């Protein structure tokens, strides 16, 4: 387990490697280990990757894992304001508590939740995803039209590659490389990391633009206190992460954005989001680790992997001669409970290790641009390559850095574009499955109609807020 913590944390620094790759890496060794040794190792790696990844997201604008992408929206501006240690303190506390809390939640609501999961169909999935897309209206920073334009562009970019139902390639310009679409990691490093690195090199100085008001450890404690001050936000975000994790097929990258969107939508000061607001760090970090608790439960109890990481875990189960499903919870109750407890223990161990590192790693914010610029560029572009081991992904990352720079300069919302991109493919896939299964009135179901009501509420709230600010639309 400790080995898993070290692997997960150390490889979490690279955007493509954190999370899935180390899990896949240890998969072949499953034959050599007993189930109670091998399976906890895989779960451990999956559990701690997000904690390492949040540090690079906050300090360098490079998310270590895909679910850390939402953390950089407010995490990096906090670093620029000289509050890197506070941001990391808040991120690690919410991530650790989110992971632990989700397991408690998993154990408490197993019977009810599994009943609900079985009731969710593709039609409902369409509206779960639409709910995520509706947060684009909330993610819009200064101008609503620019935010919506960015989100729509993200959705459009997600259409590149094979159409999931017909198999017809779209907008690939004849290149087989684009048949599988544009990869998420090159898009993230291109949109966020490289434009900030270029801006840093152009302006000079350091990432932290002002002197820190508090010393390293004091800031960390302030971050920890922030999570308890915003306990209601933490709880809501954790439940969102958990529920998204339970629903198979959505993936962990969506939950932090939804949590961030609801945090901003329900905040009394939404205008502070995106400028280095600690709530903008707490919400996505509480959600990203809680996803694991939910998806682990669905994988164990139903044999349905909630994310790509859980699909690897499913493979590990099969290699060990075990079949996850409804009988897993009764026939292998000891193993199931062990895996859920592993999530708790590893989160605490990883949190402890990371807390010890914060005062040291947060000094990165004071490293001059002439040293930090090449480091960020190297980490970002190497990460882009390692994602699929294709040089084309490096080109994609550079192309998106141009787009990122243009968006940064002219006030378009990069998080909204990313959210649209993440959800676009899923939306199209489930839309056509739902249309095929239920016809044009596929949405006439209680769960779908409830979700439609929530979506209308979210969009309405965004519009009301915008109309209150006369200049924003």
């Amino acid at each position: 387990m400790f080995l898993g913590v070290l692997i997960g944390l150390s490889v979490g620094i690279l955007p493509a490697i954190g999370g899935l790759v180390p899990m896949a890496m240890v998969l072949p060794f499953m034959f050599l280990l007993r189930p109670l040794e091998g399976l906890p190792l895989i779960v451990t790696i999956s559990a701690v990757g997000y904690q390492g990844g949040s540090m690079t997201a906050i300090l360098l604008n490079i998310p270590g894992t895909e679910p850390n992408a939402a953390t950089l929206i407010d995490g990096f501006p906090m670093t620029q304001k000289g509050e890197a240690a506070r941001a990391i303190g808040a991120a690690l506390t919410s991530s650790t508590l989110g992971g632990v809390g989700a397991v408690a939640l998993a154990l408490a609501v197993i019977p009810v939740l599994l009943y609900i999961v079985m009731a969710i169909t593709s039609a409902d999935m369409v509206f779960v995803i639409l709910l995520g897309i509706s947060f684009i209206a909330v993610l819009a920073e200064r101008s609503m039209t620019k935010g919506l334009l960015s989100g729509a562009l993200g959705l459009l970019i997600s259409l590149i590659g094979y159409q999931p139902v017909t198999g017809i390639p779209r907008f690939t310009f004849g290149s087989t490389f684009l048949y599988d679409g544009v990869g998420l990691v090159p898009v993230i490093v291109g949109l966020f990391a490289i434009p900030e690195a270029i801006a840093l090199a152009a302006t000079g100085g350091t990432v932290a633009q002002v002197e820190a008001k508090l010393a390293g450890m004091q800031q960390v404690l302030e971050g920890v206190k922030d999570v308890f001050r915003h306990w209601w936000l933490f709880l809501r975000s954790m439940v969102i992460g958990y529920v998204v994790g339970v629903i198979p097929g959505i993936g962990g990258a969506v939950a932090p954005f939804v949590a961030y969107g609801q945090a901003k939508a329900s905040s009394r000061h939404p205008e502070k989001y995106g400028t280095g607001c600690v709530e903008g760090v707490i919400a996505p970090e509480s959600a990203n680790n809680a996803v694991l608790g939910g998806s682990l439960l669905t994988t164990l109890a139903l044999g349905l992997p909630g994310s790509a990481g859980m699909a690897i875990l499913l493979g590990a189960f099969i290699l060990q001669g075990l079949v996850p499903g409804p009988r897993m919870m009764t026939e292998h109750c000891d193993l199931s409970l062990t895996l859920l407890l592993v999530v708790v223990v590893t989160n605490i161990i990883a949190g402890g290790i990371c807390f010890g590192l914060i005062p040291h790693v947060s000094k990165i914010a004071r490293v001059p641009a002439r040293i930090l610029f090449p480091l960020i560029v190297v980490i970002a572009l190497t990460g882009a390559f390692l994602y699929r081991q294709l040089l084309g992904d490096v080109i994609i990352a550079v192309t998106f850095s141009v787009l990122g720079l243009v968006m940064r300069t002219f006030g378009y919302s990069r998080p909204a574009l990313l959210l649209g991109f993440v959800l676009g493919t899923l939306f199209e896939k489930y839309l056509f499955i739902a249309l095929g299964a239920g016809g044009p009135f596929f949405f006439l179901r209680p769960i779908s109609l409830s979700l439609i009501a929530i979506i209308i509420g979210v969009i309405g709230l965004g519009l009301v807020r915008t109309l209150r600010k006369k200049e924003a639309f």
Partner: protein
Amino acid sequence: MRVSSYVVIGIMVVAATVMVSSLGMGHWKSKLLPLILGGIILLLGAIELWREMSAGKKAASTKTQTATSERKESREMLRRYLLAGGWVVGFVVTIYLLGFIIAIPLFTLAYTKLHGTSWWFAVILAVLTLGLMYIISEPLASIPLYRGLLFMHLDLG
């Protein structure tokens, strides 16, 4: 017209191109979302362009003498952005030709040295950066780094 207006026009041109090219796709399921999204982008783009135009007119009527110095400043900033972007492009070209193992230390060394760092520090940083990337990718993750066109051509990869 302001530069930001050209950005909106660019987005609208992309959306229109997407719509036109999706008309040629065989199945309605393939073209449904591109057409809807393209239409939404065109509509939002038109609203944004109208806003840009009216904001541009207001700005033109309140122009002051500071505009010239601001323009000089922004030109200088643009030059610096292009220079930093040039370094990124240079790094990518070096990766393509010589591979990551040579490109990483070369880029780190060249950039830090040319920006006033001492030789010994630049060398140590270059070696450490390469070491970190190499250890994480090859021994740890078992992913071989790209060796470069030149070395692959010479069969030295």
